[in-house]
């Protein structure tokens, strides 16, 4: 038996089919006598298998919205560093800051003031609200009493912060009072009941400050993001204001949303009437369904009503939807919430219908029985729904199970191609081979999608039907194998 240092280059040439037929035959005779060489070939195979496996691994998924917000903040620092040696610090918006993208990070100087007075006649209303906009209440009134609202739904990592305190995770039932700041991250959301039949949805990536929460009205500051407001018909002297900088919007309606993206303020009205002014000058009057923006681009905003606005919602039990590995989004009513953080809400006792989307993008329905003491959805309940759905859907084969079979079968397809080349030496083409694997692992259907001579198609299809895969989990599986036939010199 010959023992020697393995010649890696020769082994690679053999392994990669780069030897001539005679050279290959000679080499194989040598292999028969050389255990070192065969062992080395095995190591090469092992390396190739490890590399194939690592190369097949997907990169981790990135939450691009969150990433962009983070990157934007980092680029701000880069800008700040670049500007530091220059003149005295200029206001951000007037410097040559490349504020890049994302609504989350944008806090331009634009501002909005909404004054709602739906109970007044139009003319009176305009006058009254203009007065309010200039900071003069229409009628002097005794100091109104502070009132307390409460959180009706908290998704993910929404926080509530008192003026003198630290941010705390928002929880259903948690009190909302004057002076608090409400913040949401890229995936979180907060629904708040502020007063009777009155409340708001703080959308993801938003910040709202409760400037005033009294028995005669509500004053909010929208720092960034979007807030949807639902306001009951107000009585005389009552007000509901959403304030930010240079725009003043007088709302005589009851359902409206305002959003700030990249410094642009947009308003959408769903019910009632809205007047938008800037420094006291009218910019627009909106009718239901109307939209307005400070610049050219209109932003679509959907009409959203806060969860649990009724008086009794304060005594409702809490339903908690924890983070579960299979759930990507929760769907409540006509809105979906990211399930990467917990979702909790006040809910009346009884059955609660909700939906969720799993990691494959499939939507499922689920009913929870809400007890008087509240409920936390169990992973088991979700698993049961998924198991049921699994039984009725396509099965699964991993790429690791498919790839080796397809690869080893390519040699057969190559022979089909070579036979056809005898008829047409220029034959080439790209196509897809659609494979359906039956639950027993056999190929139940092999069909080409593309144009090739019929005899080649038949040859390929019949060869592919002989492939044998591991038994798929859960049912039959279909997938495409892209093929590219080309004569290469």
């Amino acid at each position, binding site marked *: 038996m010959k023992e020697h240092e393995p010649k*890696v280059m020769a082994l690679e040439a053999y392994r990669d089919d780069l030897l001539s037929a005679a050279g290959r035959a000679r080499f194989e005779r040598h292999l028969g006598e050389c255990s070192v060489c065969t062992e080395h070939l095995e190591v090469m195979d092992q390396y190739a298998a*490890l590399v*194939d496996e690592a190369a097949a691994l997907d990169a981790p998924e990135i939450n691009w919205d969150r990433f962009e917000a983070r990157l934007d903040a980092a*680029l701000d620092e880069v800008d700040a560093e670049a500007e530091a040696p220059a003149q005295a610090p200029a206001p951000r918006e007037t410097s040559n800051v490349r504020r890049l993208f994302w609504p989350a990070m944008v806090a331009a100087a634009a501002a909005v003031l909404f004054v709602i007075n739906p109970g007044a006649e139009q003319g009176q209303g305009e006058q009254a609200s203009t007065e309010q906009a200039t900071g003069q209440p229409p009628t002097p009134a005794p100091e109104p009493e502070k009132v307390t609202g409460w959180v009706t739904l908290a998704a993910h990592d929404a926080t509530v912060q008192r003026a003198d305190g630290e941010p705390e995770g928002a929880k259903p039932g948690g009190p909302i009072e004057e002076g608090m700041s409400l913040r949401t991250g890229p995936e979180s959301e907060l629904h708040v009941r502020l007063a009777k039949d009155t409340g708001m949805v703080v959308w993801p990536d938003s910040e709202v400050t409760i400037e005033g929460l009294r028995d005669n009205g509500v004053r909010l500051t929208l720092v960034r993001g979007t807030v949807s407001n639902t306001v009951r018909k107000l009585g005389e002297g009552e007000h509901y204001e959403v304030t930010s900088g240079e725009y003043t919007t007088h709302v005589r309606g009851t359902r409206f949303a305002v959003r700030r993206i990249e410094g642009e303020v947009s308003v959408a009205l769903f019910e009632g009437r809205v007047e938008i002014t800037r420094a006291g000058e009218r910019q627009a009057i909106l009718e239901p369904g109307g939209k307005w923006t400070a610049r050219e681009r209109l932003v679509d905003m959907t009409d959203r009503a806060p969860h649990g606005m009724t008086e009794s919602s304060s005594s409702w039990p809490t339903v908690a939807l924890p983070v579960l*590995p299979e759930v990507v989004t929760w769907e409540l009513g006509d809105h979906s919430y990211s399930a990467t953080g917990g979702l909790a809400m006040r809910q009346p006792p009884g059955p609660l219908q909700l939906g969720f989307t799993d990691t*494959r993008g499939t939507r499922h329905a689920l009913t929870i029985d809400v007890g008087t003491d509240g409920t936390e959805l169990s992973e088991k309940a979700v698993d049961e729904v998924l198991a049921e759905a699994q039984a009725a859907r396509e099965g699964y084969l991993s790429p690791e199970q498919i790839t080796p079979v397809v690869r080893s079968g390519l040699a057969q397809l190559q022979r089909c191609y070579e036979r056809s080349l005898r008829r047409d030496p220029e034959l080439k083409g790209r196509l897809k081979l659609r494979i359906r694997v039956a639950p027993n692992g056999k190929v139940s259907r092999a069909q080409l999608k593309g144009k090739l001579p019929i005899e080649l198609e038949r040859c390929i299809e019949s060869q592919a039907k002989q492939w044998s895969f591991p038994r798929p989990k859960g049912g039959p599986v279909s997938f495409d194998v*892209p093929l*590219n036939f080309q004569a290469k010199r």
Partner: protein
Amino acid sequence: MCRAHHVLVSNHSAAALQAPFAKRPQGAIFATRPRSAMSGGRTRVGDEQELIERAKAGDQAAFRRLFVAHREQVLRLIHRLLGPSNDVEDVLQEVFIHVYRSLGSFRGEARFSTWLYRLTTNVVRMHLRKGKSRPKLVPAGDREEVMLEKPNTETPAAVAERTERIKALYRLLDGLSEKKREALVLHDLQGMSAAEVAKVADVPVLTVRTRLFYARKELYAALANEPALQNAAKSLTSAARGKRGKKRTAAVEAEEAGS
């Protein structure tokens, strides 16, 4: 003598095969993003050049479009270069900060994607040097990694075993010199041709081939000293028995055989 090779090329990358099963939710931003120049959008090179010029002049929208067009490729490259790591997102951010800072120095002598790849490999190299991201392996049972990478019915045990094998492979890669490691990862794992690797590394193709040869030779020797990893790899090779495994996509092999 020049012999004609008739080659059947299959692009059956794992991603392509996985596509039918792994539907990932995508936001609207993806639906409208411009096609990447690297993913075959050759007709858009002019558009990209214009975007680059606009971004250099401070056009934020243009910079964002470049970012959106290239972020996935950069992410994949970092993932390949680092291996299983929790630092991928940090490095990705670092790369785009560098792009932001140095875009002005891009003179268009190479394709933008080549410049970006070169910048990415440099950032990753610096990161590895700092020792921040020696393949730190995610503790077994890390729920997020398992979920995100395999949203399917694969058992947690199988996922954990695979993660261990990949970590072990990267430990071997870490034994190589920086240059050899980069050449090997770009070529064998990222699937780039030797010519493409040469452009990214800014060295002659022959140098890349030499690096690849010695890198593999060292790895074979290192692997032969890791019986546990060999055993783990054997279970993979037995599945692929019958064909001497190619190291990369058949397309790249065919290209090189042809050249």
